């Protein structure tokens, strides 16, 4: 996969290789496999970039999303994935909850929306 981000997102380029995933199941797995410090680090790096990322991602129709924008998208999706860990629970995973390994994530991949005709 090509992980190069557009120049305006140089600051989050180092995150791309480790945190960019098209699938919700992969994002959730990454979240649960990370420490709270790692999650907080990712969140803190992404948060100041989110407004410009959303403006940038609004510039494309889904079917015409270029490769470098897909990586921005995957990182922004990961920001939402970890948002509940940081903003609600202050824990990596949902405390006092049904076991994650028994909770199947079957959601369509982000790539599905960018290829579906």
């Amino acid at each position: 996969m090509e992980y190069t981000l557009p120049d305006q997102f140089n600051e989050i380029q180092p995150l791309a290789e480790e945190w960019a995933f098209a699938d919700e199941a992969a994002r959730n797995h990454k979240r649960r496999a990370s420490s709270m410090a790692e999650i907080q680090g990712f969140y803190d790096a992404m948060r100041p970039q989110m407004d410009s990322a959303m403006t940038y991602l609004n510039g494309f129709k889904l079917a015409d999303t270029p490769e470098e924008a897909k990586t921005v998208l995957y990182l922004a999706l990961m920001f939402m994935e970890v948002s509940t860990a940081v903003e609600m629970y202050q824990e990596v995973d949902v405390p006092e909850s049904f076991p994650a390994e028994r909770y199947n994530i079957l959601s369509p991949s982000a790539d599905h929306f960018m290829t579906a005709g």
Partner: protein
Amino acid sequence: MNAPQQAYTLKHPELGTGPISTEPNISPEYFEREREQLFKKCWLNVAHLQEVPKPGDYVVWDLAVLNASVIIVHGQDGQIRAFHNACTHRGNKVAEGRGNSKGFACGFHGWTFNTEGNLAFVPDEGQFFDLDKQCLGLKAINCDVWHGAIFINMMDQPRETLAEWMSDYDDTLGQFPFQEMELMGCWSADVGVSWKVFVDAFQESYHVGFVHARSVPDGFVTQDNPYCHVPGFRLFDYHRATTCPANPKHSLWPSEAVAMKQGAMSLTAGGLTEEGYPGTNPQKIEDFGFDINVIFPNFFQDVSNGWFFSYNFWPTAHNRTLWQVKLFTLKPKTPADLVSAELTKVVLRDAIREDLNTMESTQQGLDSRAVDTVLFSDQELACRHQYAVVENFMNRD
């Protein structure tokens, strides 16, 4: 809004106010009655049109409660049909999972059926005696679609049409713009709990301030309404609906602020728009969150401004349920819309894991027979209604 004390149950004297027996949730015999007298006679939602959007698209469900494997297929002629997943040669399954196909070929001896269910090809046909292929199509199951939701009915002649069965919802849910929505999230779990206990967990909001104390209470619970009182119930012959309030003063988290600037409606801020969506908030309450629409017996379509989610509860035993939730949001146009919808998805997904956490522990308590009745407050009227109408339905002639 904070409801007055005991305002609703007394309007339905037929439901009483007393304790409810736990027997329907712990008895294998009761479940066998439900299988025969309820699930095999009711319209049941099995899929959404968006799961089989194109001709040839199909999905297979093994439904233990019906003792059946069912194929739902979008025919090449455009019609949605349901069939028993059993070859008319010797009974083997002809399809599994989901996909797109011009037909279904049995892996045993190669008998092939088209997407309209007709038997199209029999290898070495000349060896059979009196073979009438016209009569050997896949066995059809009654199937119909209501605003995008695909239902089946196992009776040879259902007592009412799907349109009749759903007519209680024509003025509310039937007005919701389902066609503007797209499937964004889907989750499932196999949970050791009675399907009715499971349903109960999602048709009252008394639990919100407790089960969701760490996640979404600020979204729903307020000083004025600390117990998340619902503003009333719409009880039908079998279906039932209520409205979950939200907190109009909910302060947005950073991620919510990003998502909502993009137009998404968060679960916790579902109703905070000037003009509601058609088909939602029939009581026009100011602190609208979302409507809980229970479609008897085991299907929910909970709607709000710009999103809805559905639950399906499929019992596999008296104390075990295969559960699935699907979240739909406004059709995304740009990649930013996907990010915005992701917030709604993640908040819902994580909050539901909190809900599910109480299920097996509740069932274990019931199975132990430590208690032989349960109590429902006025605010849990929907739960009380469920036990009455399950019994009513099974006693229909």
